[in-house]
């Protein structure tokens, strides 16, 4: 059952996702289909204008597939995606590019996608040439304004990427996306692999850009401490499903789904006792190609009961604005 049946959704939502699925075929040695990986399976949620929605979970939970499907990199197998009240799930080609301007996807290191043979000016003008009808003077004005917002001096426009530090390249990569004036930005693991001091700088930049450009973020990350700091609401994913969704504070203080509880229990608490001395979730997630019957988490769940093997628990409202997919939540 999709989450929205009991969770009516927000009338003012910027993005409304219903029953979204993305399955990847598993083929044998002859290329014949012998099953599918349900990387994303019946996912529903809303994103409100101006908020940051965190998407957390471990490898294989589907959080990256979700981001890429929303961004149009993967075609959904089923489901609906309403962006600014228009259905975008089936769009491709030119029709999709019109939407793409306002719904941008940022991968791990946006600086790495700069063309090494182009000056920064050319890299920043290019998206505007493709997507807008602005004159060169108008483009230059917008590019300079955005460069200032990401904290780079205008003399950098004539530099090549290799003349910039990694952090500056990242800022140019973000500036490039912002020239198109997006409303919704999907940030896919934006701090993965960064040192903590660099991470602090990057997070601060995301915050100031959000205020400056009135952005809405979907913040995909495996780092729960970062998500707690950055996000208004959080969706916790496990094996292709959202198992819990709600306001960040509520989820971190009072997690309802046993998977969320286990995940939070594994985060080190600096300055406190070792968390690994206490409870630790046993086992590993099953292969997404061979899901267990009923609840997907039951093979590792400390509270699993017979009914968990029989029925897949639907997402249901467990408190104001909070949804959990567990028989006992």
């Amino acid at each position, binding site marked *: 059952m999709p989450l929205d049946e009991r969770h009516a959704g927000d009338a003012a939502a910027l993005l409304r996702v219903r029953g979204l699925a993305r399955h990847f075929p598993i083929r044998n040695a002859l290329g014949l289909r012998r099953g599918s990986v349900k990387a994303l399976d019946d996912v529903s949620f809303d994103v409100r204008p101006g908020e940051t929605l965190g998407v957390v979970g*471990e*490898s294989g939970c589907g959080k990256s597939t979700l981001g890429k499907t929303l961004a149009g990199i993967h075609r959904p197998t089923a489901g609906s995606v309403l962006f600014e009240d228009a259905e975008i799930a089936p769009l491709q080609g030119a029709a999709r590019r019109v939407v793409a301007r306002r719904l941008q996807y940022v991968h791990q290191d946006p600086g790495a996608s700069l063309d090494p043979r182009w000056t920064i000016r050319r890299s920043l003008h290019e998206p505007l040439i493709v997507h807008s009808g602005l004159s060169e003077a108008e483009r230059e004005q917008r590019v300079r304004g955005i460069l200032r917002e990401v904290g780079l001096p205008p003399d950098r426009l004539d530099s090549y990427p290799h003349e910039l*530090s990694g*952090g500056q390249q990242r800022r140019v990569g973000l500036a490039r996306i912002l020239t198109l004036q997006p409303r919704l930005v999907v940030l896919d693991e934006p701090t993965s692999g960064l*040192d*903590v*001091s*660099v*991470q*602090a*700088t990057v*997070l*601060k930049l995301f*915050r100031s850009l959000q205020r400056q450009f009135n952005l809405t973020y979907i913040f995909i990350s*495996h*780092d*729960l*401490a*970062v998500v*707690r*700091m*950055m996000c208004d609401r959080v969706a916790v994913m496990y094996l292709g499903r959202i198992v819990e969704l709600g306001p*960040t504070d509520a989820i*971190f203080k009072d997690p309802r789904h046993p998977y969320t509880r*286990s*995940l939070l229990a*594994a*985060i*080190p*608490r*600096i*300055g406190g006792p*070792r*968390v*690994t*001395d206490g409870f*630790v*979730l*046993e086992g*590993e997630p099953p292969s997404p190609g061979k899901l267990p019957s009923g609840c997907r988490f039951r093979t590792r769940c400390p509270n699993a009961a017979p009914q968990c093997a029989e029925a897949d628990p639907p997402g249901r409202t467990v408190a104001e604005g909070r949804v959990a997919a567990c028989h006992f939540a």
Partner: protein
Amino acid sequence: MAAADILAVRDLAVAFASDAGLAQVLDRVNLTIRRGEVMGLVGESGCGKSTLARAVLGVLPENAARIGGGRVMFDGEDLLRIGPEEMSDRVRGRRITFIPQDPYGSFNPLFSVGDQVMEIMRWKSKRRPEGERGYPRARRAADRAEAIELLRQVQIPEPEAALSKLPHEFSGGQRQRLMIAMALLPQPDLIIADEPTTALDVTIQAQILRLLRKLVKGRGISVLFTTHDMGTAHEICDRITVLYAGQEMETAPVDAFFVRPAHQYTARLLDSLPNPDREIREIGGEIPRLIDPPQGCRFHPRCAAATDICRSQRPDERAVAAGHVVRCHHPHEGARHAA
């Protein structure tokens, strides 16, 4: 070095040749590990933690790395003064073993796990008499039984069947368990673990950290554990040394390190960790280039407390409490605000 210490690195200097010049990757670094202690070596990318770990293992790249001086005293013997053959025959893989960051890259994908485990036991087992070339059946059987027992202790399901599987048949977490077993097999005195849980998910990471700590503590083995992740260091270490741009800044017992850091850099580093209760705090500035590093304390260009002496002289070691040593001219006073 004191008898209670298994490893004492003193004034170790290592430089790397590059096209742009000589990078001063380690600048007269000191590091001490006590017997049975898990010592964390933390710091950001490029701080020199992997170079230090490799120097102890004796696996620095010969064509690029220049050891500019210092000693690596292991159980009373300077490892920089013994030849590469003796190092590989007598020390590395036997008395000092290694757990890598990427276990898949460290297995041979074409041989079963059992073949690779038994290869270690053939040459590095405690049962092997000095100079034995063959592998007598009795020793092989005893070694195999020990390997199976160890796989059971690292919680590999059906350990006997696991020996005949290929590395790719295991998940990332299980491969790291196998690596831990292989590092323990020779019954070493010291294990060097280089970011062994970085690639793992948080729940698997917690399992591996708990397992590793239990196994080494039960056997009295010392560990040098490098990581850039403060949470990981908090979970596994007894003491922590923090490196910045090739200089060690501070060494402290784990609780003091996080609650009462004495070095300005440590305090700023911990402040930059995500904290939901306050705004984001940056250190400001960037990590220096090691080809032409700052004189004196290499943190001084980013340090609010820096004075003239910091720009000219590297601070000496200063003890601020038992087991807590800082190299700073202006150590931070008092406790840090709650983390």
